[in-house]
Structure formats: C-alpha cells, structure tokens
C-alpha cells in the first residue's frame, strides 16, 4: 500500500513539475536546484525533521488550524495507524519526488523537437501534444522511473525507523522493518533470515521481470 500510494503521488507531482520546468522562464536554474534539494537530505535527518513537523501541536497542525479556523492542534499524526501511514507516505513523497521529477525531466528534454513542432504547426493544443506525443515518447523513461522507485520504496526503512519504529503497535510495519525487528532487536536471527529470503525472492522476481527488460532494452 505504501508502495502504491507513494509512487503514484511522486509520479504525478514529478510529471507535473517536469512539465512546468520544461517551459522557459526567468530564474529557472534556481527553481530547479531548490526543487532538487529534498533529495540531498539524509534519510535520518528527514525522519527527524518530519517527526518534529508531525508532532501534535507542531507546525503542521498550527498551519491547518490557522488556515481552517478549526482547532486541529492535537492531531495524533504518528500515534494513530491511518494517520501514521499518511504521514509516512507524505514523508516519502516529499523526499523522493525530486527523483521522479529529475528523471522525467531528463526524459522530457530528450524528446526530439520535430514531432512537437509539427504538431504545433498543425494546431494541436498543449494538452494534446502532451498526451499524444510527449507521453508515448517518454514511455521508457516513465517505466524506468516507476520500477526503480517501487524497488526503493520496498526498502523504505530509515525514516520509518525514526518516525514510528513500526508502531503504533505493529500498524506501520513494513517487511524491512519486520525483518529488522526480528533479527536485530529480538535476536531471532533465523526468523529474520526467513523473512529476508522472502523479500529476496520477491525482489529477484521484480528485477528479472521488470527491471531487466527495461535496462537491457535501453542499451
């Protein structure tokens, strides 16, 4: 679930931003760099930053309270299962949308101009160009970006470890977290190894089925 939501969110935002940035305007380089900055922050620091932000009565709550006028000051973001999921997904989206954006932007920039120019001359609207020319031509890049992000989200660990530690209870436990808790915290190496083997199998299938065709085809 985490994988699906986070990757979908990142993809849509990333695509939108990449499309905006493919236009020309002043200060583009600065905006580009600023948008990339989340990616450079250490996962651990991201974990702590969002932990502070999601505190009850933290900045986020305060912001919403001021905006909506409803008192939301005590939203238990990280100690209620559903909210904790949302918080984690938001964190991951914040941290890795720049990746999507960067890769998609690279894809968008590598589209040859001729078809786009031709379509413009023939009077296609911006949306038509985007849907019928840019998207199909970016197909490979999009697949690569989504596959790689999905693999990375499967490994999502550091922020989770800091922000909820798999809690409340075991509600936000992912398979990485489960393996870690079993093998390291509970010292049940064998049990943890079994979980690790299962992850390994899933990942290998994904690598062979999804990543290989994409990467090999590219060369």
């Amino acid at each position, binding site marked *: 679930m985490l994988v699906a939501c986070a990757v979908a969110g990142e993809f849509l935002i990333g695509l939108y931003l990449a499309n905006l940035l493919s236009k020309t305007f002043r200060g583009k380089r600065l905006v580009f760099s600023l948008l990339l900055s989340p990616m450079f922050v250490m996962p651990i620091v991201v974990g702590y930053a*969002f932990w502070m932000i999601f505190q009850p009565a933290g900045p986020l709550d305060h912001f919403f309270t001021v905006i909506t006028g409803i008192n939301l000051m005590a939203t238990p973001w990280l100690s209620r299962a559903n909210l904790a999921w949302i918080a984690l997904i938001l964190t991951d989206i914040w941290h890795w949308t720049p990746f999507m954006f960067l890769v998609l932007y690279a894809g968008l920039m590598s589209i040859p101009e001729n078809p786009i*120019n031709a379509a413009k001359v023939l009077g296609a609207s911006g949306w038509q160009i985007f849907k019928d020319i840019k998207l199909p031509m970016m197909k490979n890049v999009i697949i690569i970006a989504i596959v790689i992000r999905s693999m990375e989200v499967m490994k999502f660990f550091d922020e989770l470890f800091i922000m909820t530690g798999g809690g409340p209870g075991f509600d936000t436990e992912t398979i990485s977290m489960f393996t870690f808790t079993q093998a390291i915290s509970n010292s049940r190496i064998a049990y943890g190894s079994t979980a690790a083997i299962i992850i390994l199998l899933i990942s290998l299938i994904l690598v062979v089925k999804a990543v290989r065709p994409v*990467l090999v085809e590219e060369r």
Partner: protein
Amino acid sequence: MGVKGERFEEKLGKSGWISLIVAVILAIFPIYWIICTSLKPQIEWLAVPPVWIPSKLDFTNYLALFTGKSYAASPYGEESFTLLITPVQRAILGSAVCATGGTVLSIVVGLLAAFGISRHKIGGGFFPLFVLSARMIPPVCALIPIIVLYSTLRLADTYMGIILAYGLFTSPYSVWMIRSFIDEVPVQLEESAMVDGLSPLSAHFKVTLPLIKGGVLATTLFVAVLNWSEFLFAYTLSHKNVITIPVQEMYFQAAYGILYGPQSALGIIAIIPLMIFGYSIQRYLARGLTFGAVKR
C-alpha cells in the same frame, strides 16, 4: 538535449508560477524547519503554538555539539542544569573515514569491473544484472548474513568492516554508472592505441580513462553521498569504536526528552557536504539514480 533556439519556447503561465512557488515552499520548508530549530533556544523547540521564526539567533546548540555540554531544562525551568552529550567530532571523523574508504573501494572495484563488462564482455549478459540485483534487494536482507559473518571474522565495530560493507553496497552503482560512461567512448580509440603497441590494460587507462574523467568524478561524488548518509549498517555494525553522524543522531535521546536543538544542528552540519556534492553533480544525478539507463 536539443539546440535551445529550435524549440518553440513555451512561456510559463500564471497558474504555473503559483504551483511552482507552492512546490518550492513545500520542498524547502522541512529543511527550513531544521535550520530554524537548530537556532532556537531550548524553550522554543516544542513550544505551543510553534515558533515559526526563532526569536534570536542562538548558536548554543552548535556550541553544545562540539563542547559536549548541553542545557537540559530541568522540569522547573532553570537553565543552569547542564547535561553531557558525546561530542560530535568523533562522529564526523567516523563518517568521513567510512564514507571516504567505502567510496574509494567502490570506485576502484567499479572502474575495473566496468572496463571488464564494457570492453571484454565478461560474464555475458547476465553478470551486469547480477551485480545490479545486489542493489535491488533491501539492505536488511543482506544485513543478517553480514552480521553473522562479521562476528566470526571479528570485523564488527571496526572501520574496516563498515568500509567493506559500504564498498560492497555502492559498487553496483559505480559499476553501472561508470560502464555507461565507458560505453560512450568508441572502442576504435583503444584499438588504434593497441595497434600502436599498448597493452589492453594501458589502453584502458591511458586512452579511455582520461576521456571519462568527469564521469568518474561524478560517480565518486554520487557514491560518497550514498555512503555519507547510510544509516542501517552503521547503526547495526558499530557499538563503541566506530560512530557515524546518522548513528549519533540517534543518541540525542536524553533523560528529559529528545534534544531537538543539537540534533538539528548536527543534521545541518551533516547535510551541508551533501548539498555541495549534490548540486555539483546535478547533471549526472538522473543517470546515477537510474543506473545509467537515462542519459542526458
């Protein structure tokens, strides 16, 4: 990228500007929040309502990091109470040693392997993918065997052990990234050098290597960024001798709650090199993160 002038230049509309500004604010805000927490006196760390702009620039948090003294507010609000935290010099040093060692190892392995794969087709089509799969599995999987192995080899809690683990885990990146750079250099150059009497090895290093210098440098910085921010291995493989910055971040859990200020200050110190490295290899980032599949 195409020639700029040929593209029908699209202008950015008003709604585009607004969404860009919102996006930039969202992207910057958490970073701003860390910076601002690192400059707040203790009383404002978790104040309700939150303090959006620190009342005055207060560098005690940074000072505390290096002297090892921090103010923990006693429950009665006096500020005389001091608390010792571990000075961070050792963590910074540890991070630097591990990141550098791991990066050098990874690049050396990556460079040689990339030449082998790209020029001599070692291992056929399967080997590169095999290398890559080491990166695709969650690190937690590999962690367990490594722990068992290290305790037998007495590598746990040594710089050597962490450096080896880092080198192991980032070499897929360096292999694939360097390989994508080598693939761009025509083989004919090396062949003609070999006709002139160079051995294959010196042809690789004297002809191709200078041509991909920039790429190798970008790969180095990229791998260094990965190693610098690694947490899982550092956390589990170190106990007393070795400590890195991300692990140190875990240790700010004092008796009176988490020391947000020093924690954020260390976070800022830690991400400064990342930012510098990251921005300087911006051009190559997409390529590195997709294992060389996306080229620009």
